[in-house]
């Protein structure tokens, strides 16, 4: 590519020199391509076009923004932080000691439904400040092992959680699986009616079908000196362990939610919900927060006003710009192609 062109020909029999008369004798073949005259569209943004573009953006963005805002407004979301309440008050180290102890960690919480919630109601747990995207963490998994029983020993990438102390393979290996979230929630209404939680179908179908093997069973899991999180039922194949599948989809950001289950009945405004939870998961060591979230969903996802506001802002800005440009074009018009603006006409003789 950047080698110097082949050396000048010194071999008269077959001149390689591109300038040799033999090759020169032909006139370059005319084509619109070689003459750089291919038919082309040469758009020029005239004032009318500029204003139209801005107005078009306004027309598209404002409705989308409004629709997003409405969608977000319709979403009913109950967020309840429980990590601080479900542990003895005191210093952080006390909490860490508590969570590491074998004490009973059952905790009761009561939630009030502010507005009518249409089913399905998604139950999420939210972790703050948990770096599921930490380089050390995301790399520590073996997708081959998860998928195929024969690749059980593909644990190179799983360090430092690849084998047990005596060298037998851990399935599923790696820090990601090891640290699986293990708080549990059960819901009942104030009438003491149990609210069933569906845990089927909370993970991606593609993951269940292709990514996690139906014949891969947990082995030697969570047997080490340090318990990271949940235990797995060794008789259920990985493809059916939906909590694991959800957890293994590592979150993009340090504050994230993961689907815990779905409540498939409507909740009425003013209902109170009792939550009995097992507060097992240690977030105290890194000041992480744990929250329980119940949320309905809109076409846009969860409750988030950002998109709506951003769209309205851009749409509004473009409207303002359209106005400003209209004023500029009216106040200081310039004929397109006006030669008086040329540099050699503006300052005669001067350079």
């Amino acid at each position, binding site marked *: 590519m950047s080698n110097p*062109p082949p050396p000048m020909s010194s071999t008269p029999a077959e001149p390689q020199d591109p300038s040799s008369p033999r090759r020169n004798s032909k006139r370059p073949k005319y084509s619109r391509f070689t003459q750089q005259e291919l038919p082309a569209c040469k758009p020029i943004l005239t004032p009318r076009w500029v204003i139209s573009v801005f107005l078009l953006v306004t027309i598209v963005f404002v409705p989308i923004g409004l629709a997003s805002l409405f969608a977000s407004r319709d979403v009913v979301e109950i967020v309840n932080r429980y990590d601080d309440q479900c542990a003895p008050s005191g210093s952080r180290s006390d909490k860490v000691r508590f969570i590491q102890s074998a004490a009973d960690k059952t905790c009761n919480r009561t939630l009030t439904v502010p507005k009518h919630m249409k089913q399905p109601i998604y139950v999420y747990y939210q972790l703050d400040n948990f770096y599921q995207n*930490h380089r050390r963490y995301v790399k520590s998994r073996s997708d081959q092992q998860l998928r195929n029983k024969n690749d059980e020993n593909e644990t190179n990438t799983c360090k430092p959680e690849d084998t047990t102390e005596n060298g037998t393979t851990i399935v599923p290996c790696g820090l990601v699986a090891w640290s699986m979230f293990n708080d549990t929630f059960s819901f009942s209404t104030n009438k003491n009616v149990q609210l069933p939680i569906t845990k089927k179908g909370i993970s991606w179908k593609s993951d269940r079908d*292709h990514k996690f093997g139906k014949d891969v069973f947990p082995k030697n899991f969570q047997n*080490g000196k340090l318990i990271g999180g949940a235990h797995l039922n060794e008789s259920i194949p990985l493809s059916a362990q939906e909590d694991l599948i959800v957890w293994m989809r590592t979150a993009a950001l340090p504050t994230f939610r993961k689907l815990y289950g779905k409540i498939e009945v409507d909740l009425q405004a003013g209902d109170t919900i009792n939550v009995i939870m097992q507060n097992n998961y240690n977030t105290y060591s*890194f000041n992480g927060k744990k929250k329980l979230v119940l949320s309905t969903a809109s076409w*846009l996802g969860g409750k988030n006003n950002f998109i709506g506001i951003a769209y309205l802002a851009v749409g509004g800005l473009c409207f303002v710009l359209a106005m400003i440009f209209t004023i*500029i074009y009216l106040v200081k018009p310039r004929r397109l192609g*006006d030669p008086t603006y040329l540099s050699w006409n503006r300052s005669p003789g001067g350079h």
Partner: protein
Amino acid sequence: MITTTNPPLLIHPLAFPSSNSGMSLDDAQIVNDSPQVGFVDLGSKRVSHGSRQGDVDSERFSISMSHREIDDGDARLVYVNDALKTNERFEFAGNSIRTAKYSVLTFLPRNLFEQFHRVAYIYFLIIAILNQLPQLAVFGRGASILPLSFVLLVTAVKDAYEDWRRHRSDRIENNRMSSVLVNDRFQQKKCKDIQVGEIIKFSADDIIPCDTVLLSTSDPTGVAYIQTINLDGESNLKTRYAKQETLSKVAEKDRIDGLIKCEKPNRNIYGFMATMEIDGKHLSLGPSNIVLRGCVLKNTNWAVGVAVYCGRETKAMLNSSGAPSKRSRLETRMNREIILLSVFLVGLCMAVSVCAGVWLKQHEDDLEILQFYRKKDYSEPVVENYNYSGVGMEIVFTFLMSVIVFQIMIPISLYISMELVRVGQAYFMIRDDKMYDETSKSRFQCRALNINEDLGQIKYVFSDKTGTLTENKMEFKYASIFGVDYSGEKTNFEGEQRGYYIQVNGQVWRPKMAVEVDKELLQLSKTGNNTKAGKQIYDFFLALAACNTIVPIVVDTSSPAEKLVDYQGESPDEQALVYAAAAYGFMLMERTSGHIVIDIQGERQRFNVLGMHEFDSDRKRMSVILGFADGSVKVIVKGADNSMFNIIDKSVNLDIIKATEDHLLSYSSIGLRTLVVGMRELGVPEFEQWQSSYETASTAVMGRVGLLRKVAINLETNLEIVGASAIEDRLQKGVPEAIESLRKANIKVWVLTGDKQETAISIAYSSKLLTSNMSQVVINSNSKISSKKSLEDALVSSGNFLVSDDQDAGGSDCNTSPPVALIIDGSSLVYILDTELEEQLFQLASNCAVVLCCRVAPLQKAGIVALIKKRTDAMTLAIGDGANDVSMIQMADVGIGISGQEGRQAVMASDFAMGQFRFLVPLLLVHGHWNYQRMGYMILYNFYRNAVFVLVLFWYVLFTGFTLTTAITEWSSVLYSILYTSVPTIVIAVLDKDLSRRSLMTYPQLYGAGHRQESYNSTLFWLTIADTLWQSIVVFYVPLFAYWKSDIDGPSLGDLWTLAVVFLVNIHLAMDVIRWTWLSHASIWGSIIATCICVIIIDVIPVLPGYWAIFELSSKGSFWICLLGIQIAALVPRFVIKMVIQHCKPSDIQIAREADKFGNSLELTGQEIEMNTSRR
């Protein structure tokens, strides 16, 4: 640019146009006195531009050179016809040649070694190696090696193909047969088996297989004619001689025993020094005794010679070298910004590593139980830290890892893109049929591939005159014969009367070129020898027909009854004179070394050529001694006027001399090239005396050149003036218009010529370089003091003009003072260049609109270019066609060779070559402008494109505990600059046109965009960086906020970022495309589609963490809304700024584009525009 003394010897272009060949090659040899230095090896050596001592030195040197014995130690001893003995002591190279670089075995190591000479690849390599360390493995093995191996592979395949072609041509070359003397018989032998010392026989039209000293030829006088087109591109025949002592030997019968002692192989194709010992005699050999590999034997039935240099030691092989390498100004400037980008890169990496350090320090105690860190590895019995070596080391590792992750901040791919783009641009320049020369059938040539964009910023054009501005096709115009001026009306040949012809054996022989003749002179010339006027005219034309080195060659035509006589010779002036003589009935028919035959008005006459003193640059004339049929002997001399008037007998015919001088003045004032002819009859004693000294001199072993010159000077005295001829060298087509265009484009055109002042000025007038409203400042000095004085005077006077100019500038344009033209000659430059006066000359010259340098030596041309180059930032361009322009072409930022009449040396030294001067206009104004604009845009765009991606990665790092996780998959990171975004930039940079050719040609002022560096400057760079920052923020933070506190997973968000950034950079490019052809559409939208396909492919691989992410993601509305919002929000500021500038401060380009589109003219009212241009 030639080493050592650099004498400012004037190659006199008046007599023999600028050093094209033979005669002037002698000069070239003297100037080029270092034998190691060939014409291509004019590299970047220290130049001393013409010093006074030079003259003396060269004088001494040129004489001493022929005296110089070759040291035995330096010599190569060749035993004639004894290859064994020759090669006994030293193994001289065999004749097989090898231009191929690699063999099957060496290909891999050598090619890799050569490829890694490029900094870009080293950078790639270091990054890839860093990535292989387990501590730093950011990318997987495959992903980290892919880009480098891809580039290496492509280049290697290309190199292998080229080398295979070279192998093939080597094989053909090596296996050609030639006839070699073996055991006293000539046998066919493969060319590659020829050895030094062997005797080889060539027949007509054979290609000479190795450098050979001639022993004998079919011509009884030992002349051989050769064509050197393969060597230096000159198509005319050159004469080479066998030595008298050897030419009678028959190789098969007489065993030739001799020893040739010659210099070591060198690349000077015009020099050869050797001695030959044969039969006890000691002969000296020169360049005229050797035929070089690659030449073709012509017009000679056979020739026998002894091989002295073979194979790679032949001069042709030693001269094969690549095109010169220059670096473009834009690239040099770009490197500065690259350094800035490296600083940014280091800054980003520092920021990441410091933050990572702080984070680790804060969490140091928790690392052990942190689920997402877990410092310890419990899989071994002894619990150890896993991949953790303390905060300090972690900071270092983080730094190195961030370099790996952010590597494309330094747009290494840009270098490769630039090379591809230049190839594309070169393709279009070569294919441009507006730059195709019909007459010489030559296309534009790009010899240097890395300075295309410099063509858009040229400020100074240095032009040669002969052959560059003019056609270098000499045409005989006027004659002054014995004081009578024949410059009357010319006849054109109409109907049957197509010039003069003669009958030979029932065939019609005609000169190949018809010349317009003066009716009166034609009439008079037919009157014959009897009248006084007739006698004078007879003498004049006889002199023209005889006193030259032209060889007539009879060429067949389509009709068997008609033949054409083609006059082959080394000087176009001589050709013109001989054709003229033929037109007036003095047709040269045959020339051997002993006699000539001239058909004079139908009567064939034979003259013995008793001797000839060839042209040399000291005498500036040549002479021939003719023996007439009646036994009388005459010496005929032809030469430049100043050299001739010194040797003309002023005691008689004073009025004729006076009249001739007047005529000469009037001829040269209309731009004609003049020659003066003189003649003298030699008495018997004088002739005998001359003959004996001539013979002694020409057989002298040492100092022959000097001796011969002395003999010539003694003979060429007291001549009787015969007349003078005037030859027109017509301006090339379109030169005045081209110069006008260049001037309008604010490019300064300087003409540097070896011609004399009057001729130069008149050509300058006819080419509209000088106009009558210019005031001329002329500097002709002969000493340092006077040079200094005239410079100062000139500065004052031009300063005056300038001051008044300034005053007027603001006010009315009515009485502007005229622009100044500086005319300076070579002898003044001797005292100015390389002295403290240079500065003054520079100031003066920069005040002047036009600079005309006359009678300058080749090195002075380079000196003038250097004068400008050293003192300004402006880009210089030198254009020329002859060997004397080589140094100038190599000195200038851009060198252009005219591939026309003269040899190809200028072309070989040049960066670009073309057929006509006028092509300079489309080259600079159209292609140069486009190339510059495209390249400037491409560089900035590449900076942006890579930086925006790096910044998106960087922002994400801030949300991952500073651990350099990339949400974007490693494959997308790698493919980003290779596949996702690379094609459109290259296509757009090759094809986009900011303005149509028509607009650029009609309004040369638009070229000013390049002078003002409108397409690439630091303001634009910083604007681009600011824009990059904004766009990266939008791309990153819109999804971040939109998906904050959601259950989005890393790969999905990564896909969104990938698509958003790729869409964005491509739409950004689309927004800047000016001319949408189907190719632009295909490349831009194609890239976007290709990216989508790649992202999908990556996401259907189940073992990658991002399996099926894109499908899950795109099934939700928020993805599409984010994607759309990002594009618009990111581009709004750029769009607004672009529109505001376009409306309120439109560039010339913008206005011209609008005018182009809406069809209005850019002219102001007639009067106004005229004022403006006349001011320039």
